[in-house]
């Protein structure tokens, strides 16, 4: 579904149809945690200007986005009773632009995962093959976009939580520059890496969405003052003279020949359009430590961020005979095994005796990794790589965002976009074994326009603009 397909003369029908479709797909996809009562929003819309950019557009939010009066669980048992008393900044922005929020979408628990298998309401299934994973952590939002329920769905991205499910589900996944979209009202994971972004099925819609969502917000101390351009107006797919770098460490690490072929075909097309596409080689030792660096930093930050989920200040409370017991019982029952294990690792790296060896070391390596990327983008407009090394796996074959000695580069390179804060976008590039695959692009800070322009050229080559899938029920 694209924004241009919204019938502005019959918004009520459009919105109710979207909800009906999501409900019909729920047994197959399990993508929704909570359906939102839209009546009040539809009534308010009657007083609004039909020229607003998202007038009457049904939108889905990942369930870590605070919505006043609407259950917001972050797919965790701990927050399964949490009803926020305020809206996130982006909720205000979406509503001001005329959007109608129809559902809160499933995610990996607290955003800490890459498969969407850890959601409290159960796994989310891939709409192309429901025996395969959606990917995560923004899995619910990705599949609802891919299945044509809404043209835009909000996600968040700490490692690659928008861009990987985008590849697995054949949709565009945009993670803009750090500070581009306010995170006020988003349940955090790791504050130095967390980004808000979204899914769409066309580059044009991605342009409109960012113009709506971006901009300074005093309530988020990392929010940028950078002016927000009209991305759609400046959209231009002319590739003549554009300098694009292939990070060959990533392509060399991919073993699936069909994915390599898909990538190489697209590169030839970009060259035929006049782009200067060259391979660059980054420090392999550095790229091999992306995952442990991320694992240490993200879990350390998460441990601190989620210390308020104790059953007293927030979350499901379990009984106990002392404050300590209430907290211990609440947190033991409230968090799944994986989350508690991650907190142990995070806390371990913050011990005074480990801080230099682990936490500060990881922060230093982060700088070196970002310097590598910066160096490439000093002379190129963007980087280009295959987003993932495989199609969406089956649950038993999936590797989560956890410590692993395999796939260190092919499955983790998109974390570079979180370390650096640089804008990064996944765009569908075709199909392998009837499953979608994607290309990932990264550009200089606040140069989302280059990503959109490149994305437009790729979209023209693939013919996948507006592509959605009919789910077999």
């Amino acid at each position, binding site marked *: 579904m694209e924004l241009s397909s919204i019938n502005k003369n019959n918004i009520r029908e459009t919105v109710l149809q979207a909800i009906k479709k999501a409900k019909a797909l729920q047994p197959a996809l399990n993508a929704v945690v909570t359906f939102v009562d839209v009546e009040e929003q539809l009534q308010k819309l009657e007083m609004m200007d039909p020229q607003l950019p998202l007038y009457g557009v049904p939108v889905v939010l990942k369930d870590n986005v605070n919505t006043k009066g609407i259950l917001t669980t972050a797919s965790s048992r701990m927050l399964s009773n949490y009803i926020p008393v305020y809206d996130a900044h982006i909720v205000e922005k979406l509503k001001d632009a005329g959007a109608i929020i129809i559902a809160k979408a499933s995610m990996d628990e607290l955003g800490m995962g890459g498969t969407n298998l850890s959601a409290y309401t159960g796994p989310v299934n891939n709409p192309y093959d429901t025996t395969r994973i959606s990917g995560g952590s923004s899995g619910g939002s990705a599949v609802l976009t891919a299945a044509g329920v809404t043209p835009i769905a909000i996600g968040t991205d700490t490692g690659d939580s928008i861009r990987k499910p985008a590849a697995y589900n054949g949709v565009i996944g945009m993670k803009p520059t*750090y500070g581009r979209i306010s995170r006020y009202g988003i349940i955090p994971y790791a504050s130095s890496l967390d980004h808000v972004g979204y899914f769409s099925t066309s580059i044009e819609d991605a342009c409109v969405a960012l113009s709506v969502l971006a901009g300074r917000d005093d309530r988020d101390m990392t929010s*940028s003052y950078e002016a927000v351009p009209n991305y759609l107006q400046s959209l231009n797919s002319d590739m003549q003279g554009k300098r694009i770098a292939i990070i060959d460490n990533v392509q060399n690490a991919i073993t699936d020949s069909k994915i390599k072929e898909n990538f190489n075909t697209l590169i030839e097309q970009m060259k035929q359009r006049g782009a200067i596409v060259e391979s660059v080689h980054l420090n392999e030792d550095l790229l091999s430590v992306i995952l442990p660096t991320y694992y240490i930093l993200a879990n350390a930050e998460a441990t601190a961020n989620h210390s308020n989920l104790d059953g007293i200040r927030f979350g499901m409370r379990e009984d106990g005979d002392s404050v300590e017991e209430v907290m211990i019982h609440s947190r033991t029952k409230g968090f799944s095994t994986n989350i508690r294990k991650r907190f142990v690792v995070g806390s371990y790296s913050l011990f005074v005796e480990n801080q230099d060896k682990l936490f500060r070391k990881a922060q230093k390596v982060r700088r070196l990794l970002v310097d590598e990327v910066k160096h490439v983008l000093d002379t190129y407009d963007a980087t280009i790589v295959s987003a993932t090394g495989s199609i969406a796996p089956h649950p038993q074959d999936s590797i989560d965002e956890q410590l692993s000695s395999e796939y260190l580069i092919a499955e983790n390179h998109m974390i570079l976009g979180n370390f650096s804060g640089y804008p990064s976008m996944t765009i569908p590039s075709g199909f392998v074994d009837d499953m979608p695959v994607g290309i990932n692009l990264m550009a200089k800070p606040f140069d989302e326009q280059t990503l959109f322009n490149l994305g437009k050229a790729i979209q023209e080559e693939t013919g996948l603009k507006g592509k959605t899938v009919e789910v077999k029920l």
Partner: protein
Amino acid sequence: METKDQAYFKRLANQLMFDVSDQEIKELQTEFEILEEQIKMLERINTDGVEEMIYPFEQETQFLRDDVVDHTIAREDALENVKAVMAGHVHVPKVVK
């Protein structure tokens, strides 16, 4: 890295205000072995003279200003999500003996 027995992980978990089961401890022990390998990989990276990177962009976006009452939440709103309310306040179970 020193050997980490069951008691070590129990203690660590309790410091974080939760419990871990025997099975979870086994899994943690395996994960810490992988972590140890990966720390070795990190140690091989020369970071002499490199400054820690804490946030992506190190530019000021917050400035001191006079205090202004802003973004307040009404009492009714604040208490709407509370399990138990008494006399207009959050009511929590008595845990101090």
